[in-house]
């Protein structure tokens, strides 16, 4: 981890106060927690303070957060220094977090780093014009589009020295830039040709139940009919039909991907898309989230625990006696699970006092 330190005294601002809308945010965050537990809001508050202060945390901001949360200064300081997402020294207008972890490194992050070193300078230093500063960070989780950097809040992927230089030029000049992949592919779909899972038989349903058919053939070929017949008796007489809607993207004609286009002999990236990518008006517009917030988190349909009263696949069953919700302290579980349940003399003591 890079060496970090508090900004020197001469560039620390004399005071820090949250703006009025941020104060509303602060009140909202504190209200999330029970009274007396307001310290739990320390990370959102520090984050908002960092946003307001221009991407870094001045000392006064740390003290202000401590004051708002009724925490000792050192406790807030501990949090602010622990997390690398808090910058303790000023950063450029565009703060570049450059990923130097293995996948990016294999895909040419070294060249990107050279660009940064040449154009911005050393790590953790703001460029002379105040526009840029950069920091090498660990994996940001966009390996499929490596190499990549994060600039302020957005990812910029599929970088090459050329498009990265252009990106920096555009940012410095205040021109709009495209977020995400810089070569025009959508999210993490394959770039160029599809090389795997290309056999059309995979998708026409002919493969479904093929193993069963093979077993049947093998069974039929063996002389002893009794056991083999019994083994195959449970198999349905006709294999299940293939499900066209099974969700394989490549099956759906609706999916218009570069991979498919390449397969069909077209250019993977169309001219219109290229134009779109360089169309700044469209690219920089921040789209509001339209996701339904009430949507439950995806849950696995599988359960390793036999729950006879399973009302719906995967949903937690509140009355299941043997599966406490993860994170429940042992003392709160309906049943002791510390091993003492098998001891005859131990009575169940909910208050957790020594028996």
């Amino acid at each position, binding site marked *: *981890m890079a*060496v*970090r330190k508090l900004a020197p005294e001469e560039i620390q601002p004399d005071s820090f106060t949250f703006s009025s809308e941020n104060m509303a945010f602060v009140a909202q965050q504190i209200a999330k927690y029970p009274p007396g537990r307001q310290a739990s809001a320390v990370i959102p508050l520090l984050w908002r303070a960092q946003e307001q202060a221009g991407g870094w945390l001045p*000392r006064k901001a740390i003290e202000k957060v401590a004051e708002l949360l009724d925490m*000792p*200064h*050192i*406790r807030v*300081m*501990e949090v602010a*220094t*622990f997390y690398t997402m808090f910058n303790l020294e000023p950063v450029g207008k565009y703060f570049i977090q450059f990923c130097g972890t293995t996948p990016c490194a294999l895909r040419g992050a070294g060249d990107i780093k050279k660009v940064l070193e040449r154009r911005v300078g050393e790590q953790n230093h703001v460029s002379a014009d105040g526009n840029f500063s950069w920091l090498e960070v660990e994996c940001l989780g966009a390996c499929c589009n490596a190499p990549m950097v994060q600039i302020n809040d957005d990812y910029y992927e599929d970088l090459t020295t050329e498009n990265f230089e252009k990106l920096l030029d555009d940012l410095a000049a205040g021109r709009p830039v495209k977020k995400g992949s810089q070569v025009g592919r959508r999210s993490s779909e394959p770039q160029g040709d599809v090389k795997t899972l290309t056999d059309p038989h995979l998708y026409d349903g002919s493969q479904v139940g093929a193993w069963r058919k093979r077993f049947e053939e093998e069974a039929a070929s063996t002389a002893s009919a009794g056991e083999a017949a019994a083994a195959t008796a449970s198999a349905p007489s006709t294999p299940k039909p293939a499900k066209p809607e099974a969700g394989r993207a490549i099956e759906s004609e609706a999916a218009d991907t570069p991979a498919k286009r390449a397969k069909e002999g077209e250019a993977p990236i169309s001219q219109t898309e290229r134009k779109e990518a360089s169309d700044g008006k469209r690219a920089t517009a921040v789209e509001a989230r339209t996701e339904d917030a009430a949507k439950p988190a995806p849950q696995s349909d599988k359960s390793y625990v036999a729950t006879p009263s399973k009302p719906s696949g995967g949903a937690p069953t509140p009355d299941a006696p043997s599966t406490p919700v993860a994170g429940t302290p*042992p003392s709160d579980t309906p049943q002791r699970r*510390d*091993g*003492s349940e*098998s*001891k*005859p003399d131990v009575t169940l003591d909910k208050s957790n006092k*020594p*028996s």
Partner: protein
Amino acid sequence: MAKIIVDGVEVDVPPEYTLLQAAEAAGAEIPRFCFHERLSIAGNCRMCLVEVKGAPKPVASCAWGVRDCRPGPNGEPPEISTKSPTVKKAREGVMEFLLINHPLDCPICDQGGQCDLQDQAMAYGVDTSRYHENKRAVPDKYLGPLIKTSMNRCIHCTRCVRFTTEVAGVSDLGAIWRGEDMEITSYLERALGSELQSNAADLCPVGALTHKPEAFHYRPWELTKTDSIDVMDAVGSSIRVDSRGREVMRILPRVNEAVNEEWITDKARHIVDGLRMQRLDRPFVRVNGQLRPASWQEAFGAIATKLKGTDPKRVGAVVGDLAAVEEIYALKLLMESLGVTNIDARQDGTVLSPTYGRGSYLFNTTIADIEDADAILIVGSNPRIEASLVNVRIRKRWRVAPPAIALIGEHVDLTYPYAYLGAGPETLTELLAGRHSFAEALKGAERPLIIVGQGALVRPDGLAVLSLAAQLAQSVGAVKEGWNGFSVLHTAASRVGALDLGFVPGAGGLTAAEMANGGVDVLFSLGADEIAVAPGTFVIYQGTHGDRGAHRADVILPAATYTEKSGTYVNTEGRVQLANRAAFAPGEAREDWAILRALSDVLGHRLPFDSLNALRAKLYEAYPHFADFDRIAPADVASAVQALAGLGGSAGREAFVSPIKDFYLTNPIARASGVMAECSALAQERRLVAAE
């Protein structure tokens, strides 16, 4: 109780015990760095790994409960092993990791010889390093005048952070950055603001935090250890005085669950340099307004001459804060034989007196039983500076489950939240009349505790305030079968012993204040430095330091400090404790009882003992409870409170003010100490910053 097998030994321990405690109960020793009995469990050093039968890998025994262990397949008790090869290998691995970044500077480290890491490396360390990279380097931190840091040595056990936060109650220390870059520091390296901070250096298992005033002065194996009692406040903390030759080198706490657990205040620890500085090492006599060195004979002669022509009614004796029971007794006998009734041991003017019974001036609840109180009212006291370890107990009680705590007096930071009721006696009156919400809390409490401090008692209406407090104690049922909730907090180590001896004005006698204001012609001051004597009085000062009392004196008799004599001290609870001699007094200075015995001979009223043992025999004959060391002679609290409650009187309106203005400079030894002066200046600065 839960059964557990430790190394084949089956023990029965409470189920909430950790494996480490269970192992100790079974007699197995577990090495540890981060674990400490009196602090919360961190579980980050991993040195205490043990093997639990059935567990896939070694577990940290300090953080694993006995009740968390699975029984065997047939319901046998869980089994752990603390000596198996797996455990040894695991601990050796931990030790190797700890030593990766630990510098090899034991020869220049003050912790050498008393270092947990050193000791445990003997058992689990290897003699070579397999690490070829550079060691971590960490800048040293400034943490104030008492703690020296050498942060390269830090192994991140966080004991110091937990101590300051949990026990001392100041969130000053913290661990910033993370992983290998983690550093222990205070916010922006400010000096720690606790009167208990040196204990953090004691807790440090390595040499990262050491005591700054003692740095490079000694090696622990050179020192002679003497168990003794601290006299800096009336708590009477158990200490160990380590000396080399005739010099006291350091003072350490001793474990005493009933009094100080294992902490002592910075004042108790770091007045060591005060024991050397400004010492009176020969008698002095004032000739023509100038103090001139004299021989003992000349000094005694001057006293005898002066006393011969003085009416015993114009002679008085005052005892200071650091005197032991033996010399107070000798002085009392001497004054009795001279026919003097003007005797007083209360130089601060407190109204406490044996007249109302021993229960009227003791901390009857006892310090350990503070942990049982379920409502606490503090009247006219700032326990944090008057008796820091009493405050630690109250804080400990508060941490377990916050009881109702309220304070009448100065609104100060006690390190725990409390209800501030008011500043003076009228609040106490209101509380007594039930016109205060806290009255309900006190009444509803099963074991209410009322602590009356000297701030409420060292004032003209002190007796009326004491009576009010006693009435309140009666009305809330603080004194009953099995619970004594009426407690007086003292600030002077000598006070309770002197009151036990009845060293208060006899029939027609004058109080200390009256004597000091010209009530007597000859005043014998046994180390009374906190009282200003009016001009005109002939002052005989028997003491240890060239302090206020000596400056005013006409004859100075050099005496021994508490580390240079064997003396009995009675703490605020009434606990009789023996301080032992660790060194010898400098120059011609003598033990106090011997000076008084010699003086009595010159005065023609020879005291009836020739040795300390003879003195003690007579003392124990007259006051048997002084022979009962480390115990508290039972006092009749109910009748004492009854007597006090019956006094009545009208209390004034002035606010209670603690008599201790500066924690670090309360007595001549502390005022002679450079370390205490530095601490005092820092505390002054902090107060100014806080006032802004």
